[in-house]
């Protein structure tokens, strides 16, 4: 674990997964790489956290899964964002901005 590894709340992990999948369809490892990329390396999501989250979100209907072929023609399970998932992403994004704004304000006042 990198020293910057912070414990991710479940909600934040969901948000990051949704955001990653917005860019396109990916398999589990791909999502993990993408999250690492878009957070500038701050969040390295281990498979032990990622796969349970992916399966849970699939059961809730925000992402859908299908079997496809990877870069090297390997069979792999891919995930894509669903329409309710898109809506969830928008709602969560708005919420997150509101929260971070509020906390930022709180921290700035003496």
């Amino acid at each position, binding site marked *: 674990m990198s020293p910057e590894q912070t414990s991710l709340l479940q909600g934040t992990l969901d948000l990051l997964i949704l955001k990653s999948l917005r860019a396109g369809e990916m*398999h*589990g*490892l791909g999502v993990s790489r993408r999250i690492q990329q878009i957070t500038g390396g701050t969040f390295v999501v*281990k*498979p*032990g956290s990622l*796969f*349970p*989250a992916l*399966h*849970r979100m699939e*059961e*809730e*209907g925000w992402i859908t899964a299908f079997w496809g072929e*990877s870069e*090297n023609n*390997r*069979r*792999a*399970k891919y995930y894509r964002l669903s329409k*309710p998932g898109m809506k969830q992403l928008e709602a969560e994004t708005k919420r997150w901005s509101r929260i971070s704004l509020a906390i930022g304000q709180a921290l700035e006042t003496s």
Partner: protein
Amino acid sequence: MPLLLKGRSFLRNLFFSRRVDSDLEQEVQSQLEILIEEKMRAGMPAAEARRAAKIEMGGVEQLKEQVREERMGNWLQSVLSDCRYALRQLGKNPGSSAVMIFTLALAIGASTAIFSVVYGVLLRPLPYADANRIMAIFEVTAKGTPARLADPNFDDFRDQNRSFGAIAKYDNYVTSISGTGQPTRSMIAHVSPRMLTVFSVHPILGRDFSDGDGKQGAARTALVSYGYWRQELGAPAELSQARLKIDGAEYSVIGVLPNGFRFPADVDLWLPAGLDGEGRSRTSHNYSAVGRLRDGVTVAQANGDISAIARRIHDASNEQGDYLLTDAMVLPLQDSITGEARLPLQVLLGAVGFLLLVACANVANLLLAQASVRERELAIRSALGAGRGRLIRQFLTEAFLLSLVGGGLGVLGAFWGVAGLIALAPGNLPRIENVSINIPVLVFAVLLSTAVAAGLGAFTAARATAGDMRKGLAEGGRGEAGSQRSQRVGQIIVATQIAITLVLVVGAGLLGRSLMKVLEVNPGFRVDKIVAMDVALPWVDDHKVKASRGIFFANLIDRLKQIPGVRTVGATSVLPMAEGGLPDGMFLLASRDEAPKSMDELVAMMIRQKDRMGIADFCAATDGYFQALGIPLLRGRMFEASDGANSPHVALISESLARERWPNQDPLGHTIEIGNMDSDLRLLTIVGIVGDTHEYGLDVAPRPTVYVNLLQRPSPAISVTMLSDADTRSVTAAARGILQELDPEIPASFQTFSQVYSASLRPRRFNVILVGFFGIVALLLATAGVFGVMAYAVNRRTREIGVRVALGASTGHVLRMVLGEGLRTICIGVGIGIAGALALTRTMEALLFGITANDPLTFGGVTLLLVGAALLACYIPARRAMKVDPMVALRYE
């Protein structure tokens, strides 16, 4: 939408779990392969790439487990897997599991059966609309006991009350009905017109009584029950032709009541009361009364209301004496019907509850013993990451499984048990037709099983997961401290079992000894070889009818005497120990020239001469009655043939009445007036004194009784008593034929007097059998419990014993050591039990006879029995302890 998706996922996970699992497996594998490829492309050698990839993925099994935990419906999966595991666990010890299931089945089944009786008799509401608003109304005598109502008192209650929307009086008795195909002996009731209104019942055919139907001299109308309408009348749709002959008068049927309504119990015909005028005395308690409370009126308010009216009557009346009401009370009808059954049923419920506790204690001990063997398994599971909650859930699941199976078997057994209870039950148990295994009883069974499961599971789980479970993994397995604690718990459980069993068996012993004491009482009459025939002639108050009645009875008795095998024939107005009992009332010590000429004059005389009154039960009988039943004539003479209808009336009195009312005189030759009981105003001369009899039952003291000659003063309904050596069936057939010849419109019912006698003992026998059965079962369970704990303790201490023997301890020393501990537990249990029994048996004092609730013989005997049984149970393990070979014990691991 999300709900639909979640539901679909849930179902998919439930039914296609294997496919879902293999899908997951494939996904994880494929990701692993991709990762390995990436690393290899980055230049790692194959083996190292594989290892690095595996490290990065983390434990594959753990990954899959974590995904599974997130799954929808995972809780159900884990519950199901707990169940599978629990089943396997029970299967590993089939003998022990069978014993536990059987014990629980017995306890839960017995509890369910008893509860079904308690529910059907006590708890289930009466089948009328808003039944809890229907009240029974009683007068209260000077002694404080409830009594029925006198006519004028009822009228005053009816007219002056402010609490009741409708109020009615009723009286019921059995009489002969003819006019349909076959004459029947049926229960009829005389009721005031608002009777059906009180019960919110409407006829399904025809009409209800109107106020006019109850006026003196009105046309005679009758209502019939549904059953009577169907069976005796043939269910006609039109009632205009239905006419019945009842008590010498013709009645037209005007209405049919709904199926299921038969209040008072077993009534088939309702006639209006008061058609022949009403009684005028305020001390003739002729009627029972019921009323429906007005909306918003409470029972307490109604009580106050009625009580005030009663006191007004008392203060204004000049009929003072023991029989005039001093107060009145109101009681919910259900309580008045079931009140007497309450204590015995509560005792039964308590007894079966104790049995349940003892049974559960045994099962708990067995579960504990199993749990201690599983210490290692628990330790491993705990080390693998199972939380304490998960392990507790496992124990709860096992307990639930046991309880469910045991409870299910128990309920099945309860069906059979309830049938047995109904067959065994005393005839006077009210509302017994309601007793069955119905929904509320099943709900009770389920709740009980759940409670037992929760209790056992929680207890076992708490014991097994107490302390650091990982100690179980250490070499040697069992820490000393833990074993001592679990032994202590086992001993506490056994001591509790012994205490509870002692209370239960003491209760059974007290009831049993009461029954034996009752059986020792001399009833005062012979019981066997007597056939009783009940005959009811019309209840008519006309003196010509009465005269012909007397002749009819004389004829009947003469003809019956001719039956071969019949030695003696007599008749009485009420058979001893039969339901109902004798009417009781006052009589006047009148001298020969004081005969009153009218009822009013008699009432006036009684008011004036209160000091010359007596109180006695009133019976009309023939000389044959005393001979047949073997009631001895102590002094004077018996009724003779010369005591004809036109001769001076004579009477016999019972010994206790002679002692009570004529303590320093000879009652023979004195005259008394008792016309208030049978409307015959002629004086009676006392000509003889007969022995006391237990009219009401062996456990009720004989009451002072006046016997008039049935042939001089014939009451309409009699029981003929035939003492015969021939068998019952032939006597019955012959008697039936004779009666049929003499009057085809009068049917008879037969029973043997010993049947009546047994029936009177049935309530006691019922209690003794049931509580005794529970006591014996509890005793066996407790003995098994003691045995189990002792054997377990000896087992545990085998090594210690081996060491002691090796160091020189004698076998006697070992025996004392082992027994000593057992004895201590037993003594503690017995001590607590005796204290508990002393406190609790006081509540059943009303059920006892001839002994006190703290009867030392019973207590002593039961204590000895219990200690003996427990010591016996310790004996075998103790012997095993003595035989421990130190070489084997020390090597044993």
